[in-house]
């Protein structure tokens, strides 16, 4: 009998093209997604070497980071951003790569459109010049972010030189309580293991609480694997995965679907397979989570208080906490609930899908956002936007006093003009609370769409479970 393998090992083994003495494995890549920010220098590299894109049929492009979220009838006002968007489109055209341009009816955030189109499938290796590529791991794919040199390598060869990662089992048992969501699972994990806890590893999320999540919720969990230091995170495919995939434009059809299904069903980790590391959590014990500091590991339950540096033994950790609290303008021991805020951002590759729009709209229906707060709701894609509008969610957002905008990365990365002013506070459904991430001097509290919507109503950090 062969040794039982994890899903991570199975995908890895199936993609090793060659393994030469003294060199990393040559790993085949099934799908590369490209966007405007991390690809132009890679295409320049190809031109300089006189190389073609080896497999345009395994490559797909879109624009999302630098694009404004104002109506598409308006031009891109920032000439530098406009040039970058135009360059992605001209590069894709020159090299024969299909893409959704700025005016495409299917444009969206790269990690939203891949799954939406059925491009992301179980057992695949997926890369993109973007650290949130782990999102695609929700389908049981080995998906990870790469730098621009590696983007060029994959464009030229469809391969990457890689050393295997360690496997890290994240077992989430139990069931989430009302008001607690997928975002809270991942924020709680990162608060526990820290932002480098998963370095060198790939997470496999499993357990009853993960099995009960929808595909969109699983994407939220996998999306932030990198925030725990892991390049990738994944969930083994199951019926939830297959139901989501069936009928999507690029999903296999007919007899091909049946053959694919047989392959996919063989992916889950074998009984008795050994992981390099393990951690377990009980979803039933989780509360809505929120970050208070300047990295995603600085998170607490929304009903909690800001930690006191005096209670931290390690000098480096204590110093980091002092610096973070100073940047955030928060005092040790203060409750975060009730902390006034200026902006709420609902969107991003973490929480810009239909489930997130519905969750936020459910809170805002029949309520008004605080007049002191600007609320941006940014759907993750044109498809999400259309679906939300078909369900009347845009009306709920507008009537509540929120802005309903065009798709893109928007205030998650603040490259497109959607940004905080210095000193402003946001509650954001995005993935990073680094200094200046949402605009120079801006202060970010990361949370779920439910927490963000409740905070929008209260004009302050709020617990959705206590909303009147």
């Amino acid at each position: 009998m062969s040794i039982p393998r994890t899903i991570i090992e199975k995908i890895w083994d199936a993609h090793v093209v060659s393994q030469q003495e003294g060199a990393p494995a040559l790993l085949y890549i099934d799908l590369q997604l490209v966007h405007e920010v991390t690809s132009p220098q890679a295409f320049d590299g190809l031109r300089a070497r006189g190389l073609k894109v080896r497999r345009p049929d395994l490559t797909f492009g879109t624009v999302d980071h630098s694009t404004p979220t104002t109506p598409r009838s308006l031009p891109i006002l920032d000439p530098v951003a406009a040039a970058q968007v135009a360059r992605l489109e001209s590069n894709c055209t020159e090299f024969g790569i299909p893409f959704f341009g700025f005016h495409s009816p299917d444009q969206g955030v790269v990690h939203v459109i891949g799954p939406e189109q059925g491009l992301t499938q179980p057992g695949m290796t997926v890369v993109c010049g973007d650290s949130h590529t782990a999102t695609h791991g929700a389908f049981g794919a080995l998906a990870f972010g790469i730098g621009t040199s590696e983007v060029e390598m994959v464009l030229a060869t469809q391969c990457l030189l890689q050393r295997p990662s360690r496997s890290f089992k994240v077992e989430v048992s139990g069931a989430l309580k009302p008001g607690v969501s997928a975002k809270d699972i991942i924020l709680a994990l990162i608060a526990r293991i820290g932002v480098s806890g998963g370095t060198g590893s790939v997470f496999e999320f499993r357990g009853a609480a993960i099995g009960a999540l929808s595909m969109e919720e699983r994407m939220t969990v996998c999306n932030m694997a990198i925030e725990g230091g892991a390049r990738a995170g994944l969930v083994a495919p199951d019926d939830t995965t297959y139901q989501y995939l069936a009928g999507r434009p690029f999903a296999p059809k007919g007899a091909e679907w049946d053959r694919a299904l047989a392959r996919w069903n063989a992916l889950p980790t074998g009984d008795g397979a050994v992981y390099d590391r393990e951690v377990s959590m009980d979803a039933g014990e989780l509360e809505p989570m929120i970050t208070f500091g300047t990295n995603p590991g600085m998170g607490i339950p929304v009903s909690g208080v800001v930690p006191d540096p005096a209670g931290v033994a390690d000098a480096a950790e204590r110093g980091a906490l002092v610096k973070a609290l100073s940047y955030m303008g928060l005092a040790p021991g203060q409750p975060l609930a009730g902390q006034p805020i200026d902006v709420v951002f609902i969107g991003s590759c973490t929480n810009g899908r239909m489930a997130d729009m519905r969750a936020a709209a459910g809170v805002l229906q029949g309520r008004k956002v605080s007049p002191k707060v600007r609320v941006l709701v940014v759907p993750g894609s044109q498809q999400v936007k259309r679906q939300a509008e078909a369900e009347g969610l845009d009306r709920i957002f507008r009537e509540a006093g929120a802005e309903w905008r065009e798709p893109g990365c928007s205030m998650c990365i603040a490259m497109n003009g959607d940004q905080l002013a210095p000193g402003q506070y946001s509650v954001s459904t995005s993935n990073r609370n680094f200094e200046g991430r949402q605009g120079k001097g801006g202060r970010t509290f990361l949370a779920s769409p439910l927490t963000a919507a409740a905070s929008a109503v209260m004009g302050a950090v709020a617990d959705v479970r206590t909303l009147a």
Partner: protein
Amino acid sequence: MNKFTQFASHMVAIIADNVDTDQIIPARFLKTISKEGLGDQLFYDWRYDAEGKPKADFILNHPLAKQAQILLTGNNFGCGSSREHAPWALTQYGFRAVVAPSFADIFKQNALKNSLLPIEVSRPTHELLLQMHLENPMLRVRIDLEKQRLILPTGQGIKFPIDEFARRCLLDGVDDIGYVLGQEAAIAAYEARRELAVNTLG
């Protein structure tokens, strides 16, 4: 690529853990389609005030930091985004090595592709280096890639880990695309036995 052999330099210290790529180069500078001109944007928001004037209390603005080719920093350096603009900015500023107890995975890969050595040292070595640096900011450290050693002025050599393949590429001054292009036969053979997963062309 130039061959990377050895060099000596004094250090500049940014002692903080989890220095993320948004600090190394803020996202608003990523709208460029070029690799050039990023050295001036390195640590921009720590380095310059709201008017764009250098902040006197930030180490890269200190006269002693000029010409330093080694950055001494904390755990998990380069966490966050996959932007290769981070090592581009560091090398264009003049850094050739970053010394830290640990690095984020993607940053480490990106650094190696750009002849920027991510040198992992133990906690005690890190503390020793910092102490020596604080006592004498102009203290020169030699980094010898051939011998895989960080060499102190006392002559003491400290071995550092580095991927053997990456080390070979750096010493030979070649990037790895050529190596992979050379495996065309293996790639074609793999493609011939590979089961179709997706066709983005429809």
